[in-house]
């Protein structure tokens, strides 16, 4: 460790972008390997889970649909915490984290909607209904798209950071609405069966593969988020260096 940072605590060192890059570089191969391993085990367990007596083989869609839906909300929660980091501590890494997470969150939300639709057709007899759960998740998807557009609308990341953070925090109201929509309103979507008071109602033969898949996709999320954050830091460095190069070219000095 360089003497420039050794006086501060280890945790705060991570907040230095350069320190973050070296930690991410060391962690990513392990995180990526673990992700592949857990997802492979989860996939094998999912394929060997018995068919449901009512749902038949479509119960297997649950093993990907539920993790995607959880992650779509977890990603938005992480972005909201990052938004606080931007607004309260004005930390540049917080904005990098939020900007890098948005496209990943949008992808997981889209996949939750697609797999849900493909599950709804055989089980409910319809691809889509405008009920509380489905509509609130669709609104979440639209918010991700809005945030992605806003983070890329301005040249200077410092300017878009604040606006994005405020939009993200205002939109956080949707997360409890999604979570409790199945209890508050009459929906086609079933209420919570895993994370609920009184324990899970799911049989262990389904609960085990579901949890392994959920851990696997969560690891995948963090691997991709770290990679995207690293890309974003590099992108900002490239921009800063190009600006320096342009300025010294203006002055007529050869750098």
């Amino acid at each position, binding site marked *: 460790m360089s003497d420039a940072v050794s006086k501060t605590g280890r945790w705060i060192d991570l907040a230095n972008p*350069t320190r973050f890059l070296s930690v991410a570089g060391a962690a990513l191969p392990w995180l990526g390997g673990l992700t592949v391993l857990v997802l492979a085990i989860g996939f094998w367990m999912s394929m060997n889970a018995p068919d449901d007596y009512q749902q038949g083989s479509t119960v297997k869609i649950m093993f990907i649909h539920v993790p995607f839906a959880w992650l779509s909300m977890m990603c938005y929660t992480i972005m909201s915490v990052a938004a606080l980091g931007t607004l309260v501590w004005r930390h540049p890494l917080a904005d990098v984290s939020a900007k890098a997470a948005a496209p*990943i969150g949008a*992808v997981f939300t889209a996949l939750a909607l*697609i797999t849900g639709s493909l599950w709804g057709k055989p089980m409910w007899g319809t691809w889509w209904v405008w009920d509380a759960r489905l509509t609130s998740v669709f609104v979440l998807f639209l918010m991700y798209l809005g945030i992605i557009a806003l983070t890329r609308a301005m040249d200077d990341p410092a300017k878009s950071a604040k606006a994005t953070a405020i939009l993200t925090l205002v939109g956080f109201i949707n997360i409890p609405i999604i979570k409790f929509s199945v209890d508050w309103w009459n929906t086609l979507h079933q209420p919570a069966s895993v994370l609920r008071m009184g324990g899970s109602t799911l049989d262990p033969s389904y609960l085990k593969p579901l949890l392994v898949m959920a851990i696997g996709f969560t690891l995948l999320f963090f691997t991709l988020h770290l990679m995207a954050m690293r890309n974003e830091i590099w992108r900002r460095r490239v921009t800063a260096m190009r600006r*320096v190069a342009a300025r010294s070219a203006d002055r007529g000095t050869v750098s």
Partner: protein
Amino acid sequence: MMSHTGFVLASYGAAIIVLAALIGWIFIDQRSQRQALQELESRGVRRRSETKMDKAS
């Protein structure tokens, strides 16, 4: 009783295709940023805030 294999395959297929596209995009972005950084560094461009520590990484 029911044959819904098509829906199951479509779900897993969609997940694999969409995730592969996301992962591919992140890797392509990573390569282009790395190349741009190397190109600028080889031209001797430095950031104003660059410290001794930055060069080590």
